[in-house]
């Protein structure tokens, strides 16, 4: 089933190749201009004395990759669902609908791996963070965990919301949350204590902190990694149930 979904993704990208490639190039440049450059001037004394370029690199990469993921999830689980395209035909196939959703999540992650590599290359050229190969290898699994969490959030929203206006507002909120409240760009210490603590203990905040801890201190917090992984699995299972319920009424 995953191969069928991957082939379909390939077809969609092939049918819109220039838009996809353009976005992959333009988004990092745009985010570099609107987030990285002003923050570089704004943050005079970086926390923990980590160079700004190294601090911001993982967060910016995650933001771009999550943004690139939104159209795929939006199209396949919201737009096609509310317009009754593809999914009615899919309902009538003999496959397990939950399994379809898990395969969809894996497909999104596989596609995201490709996006992540490309975005990492582009940001390495734009920001020049001065990382070594090992640093990139450490970052990569954390990116995947964060993106899998983000994909689950997007899937849930795409499945439970039926109105386009509500969905758009939620997507904007989700984007603002990823940029400002998940530790990608702004460290939790900058928030008022209570709010900072709330954001810090959310799964997204936990993953960002673990990523930076592994990257800058060399300490791997396995408890966070495993608990995030379990959260992703349970969330995907829940999404499978919602998907099935939403398809067959």
């Amino acid at each position, binding site marked *: *089933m995953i191969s*069928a979904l991957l*082939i*379909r993704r390939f*077809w*969609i990208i092939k*049918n*819109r190749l220039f838009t996809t490639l353009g976005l992959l190039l333009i988004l990092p440049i745009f985010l570099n201009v609107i987030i990285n450059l002003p923050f570089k001037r704004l943050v005079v004394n970086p926390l923990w004395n980590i160079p700004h370029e190294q601090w911001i690199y993982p967060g910016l990469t995650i933001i771009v990759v999550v943004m690139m993921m939104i159209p795929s999830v939006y*199209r396949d689980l919201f737009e*096609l669902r509310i317009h*009754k*395209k*593809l*999914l*009615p*035909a*899919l*309902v*009538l*196939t*003999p*496959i*397990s609908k939950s399994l379809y959703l898990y395969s969809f999540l894996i497909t999104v992650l596989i596609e995201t791996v490709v996006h992540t590599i490309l975005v990492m290359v582009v940001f390495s050229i734009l920001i020049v963070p001065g990382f070594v190969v090992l640093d990139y290898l450490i970052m990569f699994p954390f990116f995947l965990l964060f993106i899998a969490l983000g994909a689950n959030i997007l899937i849930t929203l795409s499945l439970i919301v039926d109105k386009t206006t509500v969905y758009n507002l939620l997507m904007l909120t989700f984007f603002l949350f990823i940029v400002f409240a998940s530790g990608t760009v702004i460290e939790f210490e900058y928030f008022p204590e209570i709010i900072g603590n709330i954001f810090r203990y959310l799964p997204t905040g936990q993953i960002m902190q673990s990523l930076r801890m592994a990257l800058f201190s060399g300490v791997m917090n396995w408890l966070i990694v495993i608990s995030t992984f379990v959260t992703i699995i349970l969330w995907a299972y829940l999404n499978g149930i919602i998907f099935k319920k939403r398809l*067959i*009424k």
Partner: protein
Amino acid sequence: MEASITFKKVGQLIDGKTILASLSFGIERNSTVAIIGDNDDSGLTEFLRIIAGLSVPNYGSLYIHGLDSIKRQSEIRKLIGYVPFKNDMDPWLTAEQNINFINSFYNIDNKILKEKYKFYTNALELGKELNVEVNRLSPGVLRKVTLLRELSRDPKILVLDHPTAFMNAKDSSLTWNLLQSVQNDMTMIYSSSSLNRIENFHDRILVFHDGKIDLDDNLANMLKNWMGYYQFTIQFDKFLTPLFNKIGGVKNIISPTKKENTLVFNANNRSVLLRVMTLLTGVSITDINIKRFHLRDLLAARYIHEGIV
């Protein structure tokens, strides 16, 4: 004959309104069933959706090839092809990509799938349209593409909601011819507003009215039971009541009526007219008209105020 589809007290409510009311009947294997109903409340689309597996009935049981539609869902899904009224294809993929994607989930031998696909592509005269993104195709071509998608899986039951809607005359004719050529290989249930087509393409006609099946038979039997095959109109110079009463006693005459100097009656065969004529010796006749009844006449007579026709 073996049953292909069996309804046992199947009922469906939508927003508290009864759409289908306790349906119990069977459809024989490899038979062709045409269904007719008004577009709003007859329950026709819901009926097709239930057979296809898109809707689950609120109560009652449905068996497809002897399998319970709820408990043996995945087995049943392999047997059914469904052409919905509204296009359900992914607008960002080409027609061929859409077909390949959906059919890849049916676990059918690729060689067989390709052979069938090629055969029906030729039969439906589809070519370069298959490589065009679906959102650029006309609704009529889209219906042919949907039919191709379903037929290439070689389903045992084919459910079609207005199969030739939006098609031009040529495509419509092509599609009906194709459906007629495969009708003996599968059970076919279809709705259509083309009554002429239905007359020539059915083993049974179901007429839905207010969520119930109001008529269920082939056209010949329906006409025979409800109004006869023919309507005869005889116009006289002067038509008196005693003669009318005499004609009313003729064997096998149906619904004789007198309208001033005109006699109108129905019958199942033309010999009734000859029997009537023997009573008319010496009577001056100005005109005789014989009309063969059609499905439209039957529906008009029965639902004249209900808006079915």
